[in-house]
């Protein structure tokens, strides 16, 4: 396995910038997940890593060695595609050994490798079949098997699970994670599913409009999003973002929310950088799970607010409630046993230690 350094990579088609100055260093054995909305450039970045497209500018180093000009074959990187890209005229065994055959690996070695990989992925009984005789999950396994067979230095997985149904997707996700732990492989994984990103990644790279928005651990990205784009993109239901003004009351910084039907205020999180924003506008980010139902007996102390219930959506594990706070849709993730109904009013408590503030203009995180 190997480390990969992506240094100042830029990609331009005509006058359109697809990738702007992307730099990511991927450690040996790391599981890096690239996430972003469609058209954010993540697939182009994959193609550049694979060598299928040249970057307009920038350098790629695999284990410190410059591979920017190397052909896909020379890089020894394997890729699992969303459509699996199994060769339809070859059997499963032939598909798995194809990369070895192209590398002129000896026949007995190839047979041994096919056997080992098929045992690992439990597809031994499928070796003689053609891809069209396989189910989606089986095809997925074969595609992974083909990637494993030649023991590459780096694996690229391009939305490998998005063609599977929900149940199978969850199973395969676990299996990919297990495989990563077992092989200690370096993996770059593209997805737009943020659950996959959170569960699989050692680090997540969030991209938008060809720009790397944040590169960090799943915890970083979730709890300390670099800007409002990341805050909105990661987490479902998404983080509540409301505009607020920072005010100083009796030496205490407070956030005053004026939008919406009822203005309210919350104590600002303890953060030195926020002091500079006194009188200025910020965007407060509140995760739905940072809200809980308050005891109605509670005094209207700090962090407690009254709100009207708009929609109640029980999901089983928890109940999502839309509240009439901040002028827009404000979602709270509550315990499944809450007794709330549309039209009711209730008192809620917001865990202000989990509240994040973003600059009102640049929308980057403060502190």
């Amino acid at each position, binding site marked *: 396995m190997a480390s990969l350094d992506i240094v100042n990579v830029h990609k331009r088609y005509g006058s359109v910038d697809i990738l702007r100055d992307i730099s990511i260093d991927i450690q040996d054995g790391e599981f890096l997940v690239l996430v972003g909305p469609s058209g954010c450039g993540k697939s182009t970045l994959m193609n550049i890593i694979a060598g299928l497209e040249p970057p307009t500018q920038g350098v790629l180093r695999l284990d410190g060695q410059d591979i920017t000009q190397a*052909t896909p*074959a020379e890089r020894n990187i394997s*890729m699992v595609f969303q459509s699996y*890209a199994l*060769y339809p005229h070859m059997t499963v065994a032939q598909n798995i050994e194809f*990369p070895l055959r*192209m590398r002129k690996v000896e026949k007995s070695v190839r047979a041994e490798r096919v056997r080992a990989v098929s045992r690992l992925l439990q597809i031994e009984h499928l070796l003689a079949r053609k891809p069209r005789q396989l189910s989606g999950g089986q095809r997925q396994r074969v595609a992974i098997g083909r990637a494993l067979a*030649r023991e590459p230095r780096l694996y690229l997985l391009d939305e490998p699970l998005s063609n599977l149904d929900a149940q199978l997707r969850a199973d395969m996700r676990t299996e990919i994670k297990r495989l990563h732990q077992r092989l200690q492989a370096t993996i770059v994984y593209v997805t737009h599913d943020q659950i996959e990103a959170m569960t699989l990644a050692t680090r997540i790279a969030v991209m938008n409009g060809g720009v790397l928005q944040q590169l960090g651990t799943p915890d970083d990205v979730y709890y300390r999003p670099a800007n409002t784009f990341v805050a909105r993109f990661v987490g479902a239901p998404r983080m509540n973002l409301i505009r607020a003004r920072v005010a100083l009351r009796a030496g205490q910084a407070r956030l005053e929310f004026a939008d919406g039907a009822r203005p309210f205020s919350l104590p600002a999180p303890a953060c030195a950088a926020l002091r500079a924003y006194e009188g200025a506008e910020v965007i407060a980010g509140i995760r739905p799970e940072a809200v809980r139902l308050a005891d109605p007996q509670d005094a209207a102390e700090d962090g407690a607010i009254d709100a009207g219930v708009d929609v109640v959506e029980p999901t089983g594990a928890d109940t999502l409630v839309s509240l009439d706070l901040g002028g827009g849709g404000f979602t709270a993730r509550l315990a499944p046993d809450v007794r709330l109904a549309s039209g009711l009013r209730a008192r809620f408590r917001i865990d202000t230690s989990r509240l994040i503030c973003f600059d009102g203009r640049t929308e980057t995180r403060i502190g």
Partner: protein
Amino acid sequence: MDKAIARVSPPARGETGRLGLQWSRAAPRVVLYLLLAAGALLFLAPVYVMLVNSFKPLAEIRGASLLALPSDWTIDPWIAAWATAKIGVQATGLRPYFANSFLLVIPAVALSTLIGALNGYILTQFRFRGANLMYAALLFSVFIPFQIVLIPMAKTLGWLGLAGTVKGLIFVHTVYGLGFTTLFFRNYYAAFPVELVKSARMDGAGFFGVLRHVLLPNSAPIVIVTVIWQFTSIWNEFLFGASFSDFSSFPLTVGLNNLVNSSTGVKEYNVHFAGAFIAALPTLVVYVVSGKYFVRGLMAGSVKG
């Protein structure tokens, strides 16, 4: 589809009503089959005339109706057309010309198909500058009438030292076929899954490796279409054959023409019919054997292309 659905749910009615309903449903079908039968008859009539008269002695053709079955069956006209009829100055029959045509058509079809596949691969998988212009130019070559290229082609063949040889004809037909074969393969490969090609490149297949291991093995429908198309057009081609060959390299079409158009002696219609049939047989065989792939291949190219 919708006809089948309609048949499933006949409304319950009285006997006469149901009969009337059946007739009104069957009537279009009857008319359709009558029209198709008439059409088939129209196209098959000349074949019938050719076949029937090729088995008659010459006297019977002159004496009786062209449509009548032979009263005195004979295969002599076929033997004459194949082996003994006088064509030009020699009494060789069509046999040597038949051989020439095969020597011409097999390499010409193979070469033009392979180069067409290569062109289609390059035009679809490598987005190079001017690719569309190149394709447009190749496409345009399809519309150039044969007559226009006669003199330039004759000069080229002279330069290459291929004038009057089967090799020269192979060259001419390969070049002339490229427009069509490229068109076929380009449209087929334009709908080919990009990821398969990407995957093959990452798996270590080189420029020709991708074509050989991934594209060609999955090209059966379009290869069949191209082969049929090229085979029939080269086999039946006359003008190039007459212009660029000599006595040693005349293809079958020219041989047949010389057999039929000989200005001396009696016109042996029965031998001519047999000769024409011999000339048409290989293309007939090709169509019968692969006709269903031909239609399937045309559909495959058109639906997604």
